[in-house]
């Protein structure tokens, strides 16, 4: 066994923080997946593709606005809307006809959509690696716990909770959010009280995909934006949603925290096998609670 670095308290602390900031991205993406699963009952395999489109859109918009600070912020704000637009078209043209189908059909269908969107991204952006530079305020590191911690990760640690609070307020305090929760459980009855459920579903789907796009735009400066990033995230997001409890937003948060933290502590403990740690955590959680940690809406 070959440990990557000596394990000091400060190293553990910083890895924990890095893990938490990574968890924020995972949370934003998987909460969108979970929302779509919960309200529409659609296991959207193409969710990762929308995350990838979010990242590529951020790259293009960033360049279009001349890079720099303004480019970054505009790209971050606008990319999720680009993704939401794509989602709206997909929903109205395809998904809205399929909600009554069985889950296997939906899995196959969204899997096909993932392949199609992957090809589309390849046609539009090519197979090159792209990168986005962070604006000056978020560049560099801060000294924390005697080590240095990237400012951008700190930024992620602020955005994640904001999204959680926003999502909570939306589902619990707005009328459309309450309707979405009701439709998740009894679509016909919502219909029978005079609500056009079709549009509620469209809205819920678009919101879920918006979150995928936001996750993609947020992750873009921390990685190389390239084809294949859809596959990685969708597997992680499905595992997170499963261990958290299908359709449960807090479950998505909890699952993301477990996933992100075990991943980065794994890097510290045993770098060659770091990738195994979060999956091990998933197995342990599922043995302990097969339907996820928190209440599933399914």
């Amino acid at each position, binding site marked *: 066994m070959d440990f990557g670095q000596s394990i000091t308290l400060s190293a553990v602390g910083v890895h924990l923080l890095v893990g938490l900031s990574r968890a924020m991205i995972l949370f934003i993406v998987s909460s969108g997946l979970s929302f779509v699963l919960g309200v529409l009952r659609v296991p959207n395999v193409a969710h990762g593709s929308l995350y990838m489109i979010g990242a590529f859109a951020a790259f293009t918009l960033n360049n279009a606005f001349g890079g720099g600070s303004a480019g970054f912020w505009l790209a971050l704000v606008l990319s999720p809307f680009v993704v939401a637009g794509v989602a709206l078209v997909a929903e109205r043209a395809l998904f809205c006809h399929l909600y009554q189908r069985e889950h296997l059909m939906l899995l196959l269908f969204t899997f096909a959509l993932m392949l199609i969107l992957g090809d589309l991204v390849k046609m539009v952006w090519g197979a090159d690696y792209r990168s986005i530079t962070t604006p000056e305020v978020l560049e560099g590191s801060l000294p924390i716990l005697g080590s240095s911690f990237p400012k951008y990760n700190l930024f992620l640690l602020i955005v994640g909770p904001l999204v959680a609070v926003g999502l909570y307020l939306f589902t619990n305090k707005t009328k459309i959010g*309450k309707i979405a929760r009701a439709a998740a459980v009894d679509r016909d*009855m*919502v219909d029978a009280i*005079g*609500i056009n459920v079709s549009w509620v579903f469209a809205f819920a789907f678009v919101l879920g995909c918006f979150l995928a796009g936001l996750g993609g735009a947020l992750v873009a400066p921390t990685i190389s934006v390239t084809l294949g990033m859809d596959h990685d995230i969708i597997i992680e997001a499905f595992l997170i949603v499963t261990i958290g409890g299908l359709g449960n937003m807090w479950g998505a948060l909890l699952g993301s925290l477990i996933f992100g933290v075990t991943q980065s502590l794994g890097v510290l403990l045993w770098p060659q096998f770091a990738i195994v740690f979060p999956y091990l955590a998933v197995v342990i959680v599922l043995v302990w609670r097969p339907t996820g940690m928190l209440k599933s809406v399914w």
Partner: protein
Amino acid sequence: MLEVEDVHTYYGLSHILFGVSLEAPAGEIVCILGRNGAGKSTTMKSIMGLTPPRRGTIRFKGAVITGLKPYRISRLGIGYVPDDRRVFADLTVGENLEISERARGGEHAWTLSRVYEFFPALGRIDGRRAGFLSGGEQQMLTIGRALMTNPELLLLDEPTEGLAPMVVHLLEEQIAALRDRGLTVLLAEQNQKVALRLSDRGYVIDNGSIRYHGSIQDLRENEDVRRKYLLV
């Protein structure tokens, strides 16, 4: 108010309603009596558009509503109270009512506070999750929810099923009160006593066909029909 004409409804391949026809004149309570599986709920769902009939016509206030989506039918003024209650269990009592609100009908329109006035028991548990309510409270909530859409016709599917006699009595009074406020009610019941006390006219359904209809007086006196189609 409501005219159902020669309606045939299927679940997939199974033919359930065989040419059901009935009428509910404005301001009356009309009951559909029938045994388990006779087709009462299916008739209600057919009117509401939840199981659209394959043949036949349904008219509401003179306009054909067959084939419309349930939300459109609801917006035209039909309120639906399903047999299995189906409150939105994750939402509070208040939220259940709030999302159903459709302002219509001017100053006499049903609002949250009017529904709480009508069912004081609900007002006291405004913040409670609907999934935790008793059967009687859930039934009041589903009726309140339908009222919030400000209907002119109310479809009540076995509202007294499985409730304690006290609660049945209370609901009975409230249903009569709704009629007195001008609402038309179509009431599906297995409970003959309740239906015969409340209604102005009655239909008897069996095996997906209407076997008898007449004024409630006639039905009360017609032991034969009741024995033949309603006793288990």
